[in-house]
């Protein structure tokens, strides 16, 4: 019934406009010189408003953006992002200006004739070649970063970690002393072996399953991703890292953490952000929050997609080794 009520309201509003139209309809329905003048000026005003909105957003919302990259590879990402964003802002500012300024400047006047100007080979060449050259630069730069980020072959002494996704939680598996991950398949899932590790593979014995992701600062990490049910995406925004987890195959992504969690908590941007968050939380009467790196799911995966998370703790290599030594291996766990 309530739905009918809302539909009725919408119909009433629309018919109000219907009635209003009766009043307005006394006027001519094709733009007159007066309309051109008024609307042209509005175009100019809109341009000012639009610039104000853009400047406001960049100023006000800078505080919510991600802090500097917490991975070595991410530094190049940030540079590429900086230059690309710079280019976008410049082009946007110029093009929008000309668009709205011309809409204002050349608003129609009766008895004036427009300038018949159908073509200019020279101009066309300029605005084909300029973007082409700029884009060539952007493509080359982008591809060099892309290859850098996706090619793990030049990483020295990488640590192997499997990140395992399912509805709606993450698990992780460290490769252990041999630094080799044992095979896995969903057909081996049984009881406590929740990731389906194949225990007949000798590499599996020393693998260490965990529910928290600890990473050593300064050591390259090669992540192997698996999923047991639907597509998930392992998104670690602070490290500029993301890869889908695909049932039936193993995907990978690598980066080298460059800032420990403690260091990031002392980052100026993060301090301000956390302060702001805690102010908001205090108003709502919620607990205070402390910064942690995040692993989120970024591919729609079902009802609790929005709440599929795991903390990432980056620490000095010694602390990391200590933590890892305190965890039980697959063999130990299965024995119990």
């Amino acid at each position: 019934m309530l739905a009918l009520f809302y539909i009725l309201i919408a119909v009433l509003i629309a018919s109000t406009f219907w009635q209003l139209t009766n009043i307005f309809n006394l006027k001519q329905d094709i733009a007159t010189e007066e309309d051109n003048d008024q609307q042209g000026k509005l175009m100019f005003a809109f341009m000012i408003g639009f610039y104000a909105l853009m400047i406001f957003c960049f100023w006000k919302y800078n505080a919510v953006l991600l802090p500097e990259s917490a991975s070595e590879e991410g530094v190049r990402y940030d540079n590429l992002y900086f230059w690309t964003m710079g280019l976008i802002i410049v082009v946007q500012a110029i093009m929008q200006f000309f668009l709205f300024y011309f809409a204002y400047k050349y608003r129609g006047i009766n008895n004036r004739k427009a300038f018949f100007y159908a073509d200019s080979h020279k101009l066309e060449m300029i605005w084909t070649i300029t973007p082409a050259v700029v884009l060539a630069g952007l493509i080359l730069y982008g591809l060099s970063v892309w290859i850098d980020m996706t090619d793990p072959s030049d990483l020295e002494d990488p640590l192997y970690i499997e990140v395992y996704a399912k509805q709606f939680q993450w698990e992780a598996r460290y490769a252990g002393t041999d630094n080799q991950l044992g095979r896995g398949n969903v057909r081996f899932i049984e009881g406590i072996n929740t990731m389906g590790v194949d225990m007949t593979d000798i590499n599996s014995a020393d693998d260490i399953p965990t529910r928290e992701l600890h990473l050593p600062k300064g050591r390259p990490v090669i992540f192997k991703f698996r999923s047991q049910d639907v597509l998930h995406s392992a998104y670690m925004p602070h490290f500029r890292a993301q890869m889908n987890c695909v049932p039936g195959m193993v995907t990978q992504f690598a980066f080298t953490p460059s800032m420990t969690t403690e260091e990031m908590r002392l980052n100026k941007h993060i301090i301000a952000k956390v302060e702001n968050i805690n102010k908001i939380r205090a108003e709502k009467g919620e607990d205070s929050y402390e910064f942690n790196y995040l692993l989120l799911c970024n591919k729609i995966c079902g009802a609790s997609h929005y709440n599929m998370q795991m903390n990432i703790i980056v620490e000095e290599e010694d602390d990391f080794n200590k933590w890892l030594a305190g965890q039980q291996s697959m063999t130990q766990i299965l024995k119990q």
Partner: protein
Amino acid sequence: MSDHHHKETFITKYVFSQDHKMISKQYLITGIVMGVIGIFMSMLFRLQIAWPDHSFSLIEAFLGRHQDGGVMTPDIYLALVTIHGTIMVFFVLTAGLSGTFSNLLIPLQIGARDMASGFLNMVSYWLFFLSSVIMLISLFVEAGPASAGWTIYPPLSALPQAIPGSGTGMTLWLVSMAIFVASSLLGALNYIVTVLNLRTVGMKMTRLPLTIWAFFVTAIIGVVSFPVLLSAALLLIFDRSFGTSFYLSDIFIDGGVLHYQGGSPILFEHLFWFLGHPEVYIVILPALGITSEVIATNSRKPIFGYRAMIGSIIAIAFLSTIVWGHHMFITGMNPFLGSVFTFTTLLIAIPSAVKGFNYITTLWRGNLQMNPAMLFSIGLVSTFLSGGLTGLILGDSALDINVHDTYFVVAHFHLVMGVSAIYGMFAGVYHWFPKMFGRLMNKTLGYWHFWISAIAAYGVFFPMHFVGLAGLPRRYYTNTAFPYFDDLSDINIIITMFALVGGAAQLIFLGNFFWSIYKGKKATQNPWKSNTLEWTTPVEHIHGNWPGEIPEVKRWAYDYSKPGYEEDWVCQTVPLMEGEEPT
């Protein structure tokens, strides 16, 4: 066409009509109805995003068992974003936009009495109607409609155990889309054949208005890519119903292993985006075509760089079929393939930039007639630029890594193809309303409609970029599970408020549209003083379009403000003056 005066019954005139003008109106009305539903859904889920635990009687009223005390469930949230996307992309901006204006304008602007096959045209519409009805029925099934996102990636879309919407809801979605593909193929083949074969004397391809070029090329992309969606859907139906393993492998769900072995979801992603990416050009090209026509007419100037515009349309169309992989940079696809797709994707910026520059140059030193259609066209160029530029980030595989599937993407594509295409559609409706209904739409309400929409659109989608850059993934029921995102709640509330205002502003359009059909000012034959052939037909619709002979075309469509002519327009049928260079 000797029989164009035969008697029409109500059924043959208004229901099973084979007249392209009536079919065009049928497409438009159906598109508007679907648009109202699609936009309304976005209002509902924006309420949820801004005020996650708040109880809304609006939600209580419309979501029935999918809500609890005015708060929607996570499942219906996902269903709403899924169906919103499906309806807006396919039903409104593909069928509603292309179907309406290709049908209306192709015969009228090329000088033909009707489409090549009126019968196929009619079948095309009714298949579209059927698929719309099935899609709407799917909203009412027990477990809820399809909810795996409009991209329906398996395994989520294949397994009802994974999400309830993947049961009957998804079956109906697939059936509806299969029928939709058939409809759009029949339509597209008809458009292509008509443009190639039924042009009037003198209407060379290089004299076609840019609208027709856009519709023609759009139809070609549709014919090339839509069948692939059909095969993707068929294989998914096989996996779902007959136990095949095209897309599924090694799945453990509900405490047991499923039998699927050897398939790959990535195959589906390739097939889906082989349509999915060209699809965004199927959506935007007609809008750009309409804009070319509206901007030229209302600037009283020839469109700048006519041949370059055609070249750009063709280049965009060609490139659009080889860039689909940029939706898949982080799916586990080989990184080398990613490099190739980055290259082809960023190339699209060149023809797109050319189009942008040419529109702006067309305005330069014009004599701009600020009709509502013109405002929407200028708005389109603005949003197309704003949205297109961020494509430089998303199309670059490296940069895509960290913004993929965040709100940055949502902001990008809503501006570049959502808002832009909707603006194109509005521009088309305001501009050709006199041709469709013989009356003019109210100007003042048109202005209000544009300005509120324009402010709301940027109010929604500009701040949204920052939500994405902050790292918030899309399709999250709420971001309250992560205290890290608590500082985004303000932006989300602002966005929702603008969205509600923008949605409400469309009521102005609806009121104006239906009012004007019956009571709008009677239009003269050529209210905008336009050069193209559709304005040489009588205001009252007749079967066969022209009462006598079809006019012959002597020149291109853009001789506005041509020196040597007294008026600032020269109809395509006017013979060249002595010494005038042929166009």
